Structures are given as structure tokens and as C-alpha cells.
């Protein structure tokens, strides 16, 4: 099939950017979206033009590197799917596709479709951990964790830190991302000791890093490639209230 692409091109963080049009010819339905872009790039390189810069690494939906807004939806809108897992069979011959970077105040564009997601790191550094030391911890079975708690924690822990939730959010908020970590650790006995401090520190860090507030649009959940549920935001809110009384 043949496609028309409109891709955001921006040579550097301060440079102005604009959408450029490219043709993708003879695209196979079995190709992944990124492989389609690879081929466009191969042509650009041969023409001596700067290929489209985009983030990617694992290409199997787990590293969280790939980050493109496709036709207005982060990761392209297929349920529980990252860009790198999106396949061309989801598109039709003759389609026009708009490809843009994540856009949020906290994610400055570095080049073309690549953004700086360091702000997410800051949130994690503020408290996304248990302060255990290497060595000298209890046996793994010393504290039992009911299956439903472990499963709940795992549901939250599936977050790949891609930032699609921020890109999708009308407020550029990182609540879903933050809540996933808060909820994971709050659900486990190991995370209890620091629960109050964690939720406060992480939400404050979120704000400092330039993310917006949550207005409960739930747009994040719809875009999240891992199906992280907004119930974790509710959990974060509960944890926060508990913390107020500590």
C-alpha cells in the first residue's frame, strides 16, 4: 500500500518545527510502523537528506522508548499497543498519517520526534523506591503477600515509563505514571514504611518538573499502551489523604 505521511520535523530544541510531507510506497501490511519509517529514512538518506529522528530501542513494547503521536493519539490508538508494536495492517492504502512528538511543557523536543523525558526521572528520584540496603534484607517469604495484593501491585508495575499518558493528557499531567509507582509500593508490605513520605514527595516532584494537575479526563488511560488503570490515581489520592494525617 501507499501512504502519505505528515511528519513533525524540528532540527533542534530551539529551532522552529513544521510538518513535512513524505510518501511511503509499497508498504507491506506485515511491516511494523517503525519499519515503515525505517524505509522512509533509507530513502531520505540516499537522497542525502536528514532522516527522521525518532526514539526506539526494544521494538517489542517494553522499553518505553518509542514515542509518537499518530493521527492525534499517542502510540496510534490501538488498544494496549506501543508504536513499535503497531503494524501497518491497521492502515489502509491511501491513508494520510500525521506523526508528531509527545507535546508537553515538561517534555521539550530535542529533535523531530524525540523529546526529553528527564522530568519523569525526577519524579522517580523523589521517592519511587523502598529505602532498603543491598544485602541484609529478610527472606523473600518472611513476609507473606496475598496473591491479590501482588497482582494489584503487578498491574501497576507494568508501566513502561513511556510518557504517553502525559502526551495524551490535556493538562500535560503525569498522574497516571506517578500513581502507578505509588500504588505498586503502597500495595506491598515492603512499601508501607515510607508510603506517606513517598506520595507527598512524588506528587510535589511532579509539579516541580512542570507537569499539570489531574482533572480526571482519563485520557491517559485510553492512550496508555500498558492499560494502566486510573484506579491507581484514586489509590494515590487515598494515599495522599492518609499522609495528611500522619
Amino acid at each position: 500500500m501507499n501512504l502519505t505521511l505528515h511528519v513533525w520535523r524540528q532540527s533542534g530544541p530551539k529551532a522552529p518545527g513544521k510538518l513535512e510531507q513524505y510518501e511511503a510506497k509499497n508498504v507491506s501490511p506485515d511491516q511494523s510502523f517503525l519499519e515503515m519509517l525505517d524505509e522512509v529514512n533509507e530513502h531520505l538518506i540516499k537522497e542525502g537528506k536528514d532522516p527522521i529522528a525518532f526514539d526506539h530501542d526494544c521494538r517489542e513494547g517494553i522499553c518505553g522508548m518509542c514515542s509518537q503521536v499518530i493521527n492525534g493519539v499517542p502510540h496510534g490508538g490501538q488498544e494496549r499497543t506501543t508504536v513499535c508494536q503497531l503494524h501497518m495492517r491497521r492502515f489502509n492504502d491511501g491513508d494520510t498519517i500525521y506523526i508528531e512528538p509527545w507535546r508537553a511543557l515538561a517534555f521539550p523536543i530535542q529533535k523531530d520526534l524525540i523529546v526529553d523525558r528527564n522530568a519523569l526521572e525526577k519524579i522517580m528520584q523523589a521517592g519511587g523506591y523502598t529505602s532498603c540496603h543491598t544485602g541484609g534484607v529478610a527472606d523473600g517469604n518472611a513476609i507473606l503477600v496475598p496473591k491479590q495484593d501482588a497482582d494489584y501491585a503487578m498491574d501497576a508495575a507494568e508501566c513502561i515509563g513511556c510518557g504517553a499518558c502525559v502526551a495524551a493528557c490535556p493538562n500535560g499531567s503525569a498522574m497516571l505514571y506517578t500513581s502507578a509507582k505509588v500504588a505498586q509500593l503502597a500495595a506491598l508490605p515492603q512499601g508501607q514504611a515510607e508510603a506517606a513520605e513517598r506520595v507527598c514527595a512524588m506528587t510535589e516532584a511532579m509539579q516541580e518538573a512542570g507537569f499539570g494537575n489531574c482533572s480526571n479526563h482519563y485520557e491517559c488511560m485510553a492512550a496508555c499502551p500498558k492499560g494502566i488503570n486510573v484506579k491507581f490515581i484514586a489509590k494515590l489520592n487515598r494515599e495522599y489523604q492518609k499522609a495528611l494525617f500522619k
Partner: protein
Amino acid sequence: MRILSSSVGRKILMSITGQLLIIFILIHLIGNSTIFFGPNGINAYAEHLHSLPPLVWAFRLFMLAAIAVHIAYGVTLTLENKAANPGAYAVKRNLKASFASENMIWTGLLVLCFIGYHLLQFTIHGTPDVVVGLDSANRPDVFRMVVTSFGNALISLAYMFAMLMLFLHLSHGIPSFLQTMGWNNEKTIPAFGTGGKVISAILMLAYISIPAVILAGLLKL
């Protein structure tokens, strides 16, 4: 205080003040519906209400404070949110966010305008349409005032429009405050979404029923 500086904390204040406002709306609706019992209903209710001035004023100030907090944080949160999202997508398709959720500030401000107007009209009696008088039992004749004003189609329509705004505000506001309070889980999230819409619709229809009934001529002087 941590709660005031944190984005979650401020949202909780929004939520609590929003809930207070909803409670007020409910009480107000019950009070207003005494109009269906004719002059004796609503005039007696109004008289009863005003017989305890300190309580009335305490209540008024409390609601004023609640709405002030709600507005102050509503505006600041909205400004912060707009700043955090440069909104520069050439194409953006929302999957979940609704007209109501995206326009909370506008529906809120329109409701605010309406509240101003509403107070000016029926509390301060400052608009030309208002007829002030006493009924046969020497009570302020609220019934006549309301029925006369709502007899004016324009005033009724404005009122209905305001209630539509309130509906929009609450159709997102109700599920939203439940989420903000953390009273939510995987199963309740969709249920509250629909529930919120239904309740706000009922509220809207209930409020609108008053001018509608008057306009239709079913409630006359």
C-alpha cells in the same frame, strides 16, 4: 501547608468545596420545589428560612467561602494545566476526555455568572423584573416574585441555559470528585461516569421544571 502547595492537595480542596456546593444545590432544590405547593408552600418555606438571621448568615458566609476556594483553585489549576500543555498538536484526537471535562472552567464561570445574577435577582431584588410584596398572610410573596419573573420567557431561557451549564459541570464534576477523593476502583469508574451524568441530568431537569411549568402556564398566580 503541604495540602495547599501540592497539586493533589489542591484538587482535594476543589473536590470538597465542589461537594459542599452540590449539597447546597440539593438543599436548594428541595426548598425550591415547595413552589409546587403554591404560595403557601414556598412563602412559608422562605419565611421559615429567614426567621433565624444568624444561621442564614453563617450559612451564606460558609457557602461564600466554599465557592471562593472552589473558584480560586479552579482558576489557578486551569491556568497551570494550560501552561503544562502547550497544546500544539496539529492533529489531536481525544479518546476519553469529553466536552464537559474539557470545559469545566467555562461551565463553572458561566454558573458563577448565573449565581451572581440569581442573587441579584431573587436575593437582593435588584433586577427590574422583580415584584416585591407581601402575601395574604403578610409573608414576603416569593411565589408571586418567581412566577412573575419566570413568566418572562427570556429570563426562563437564561435560567435553563444556566442549568444546562450546571449539568455539564456536574456530569464531569460528580465522577471527578469521587475519583479525587479516592472513592473509586476499577468497577466503579465506569459506573460513576454514567451515574454522574444521570444525576446531573436529573438535577438539571428538576431545576428546569420550575420555569418550564411556569412558562407552560401550569403554575399561575
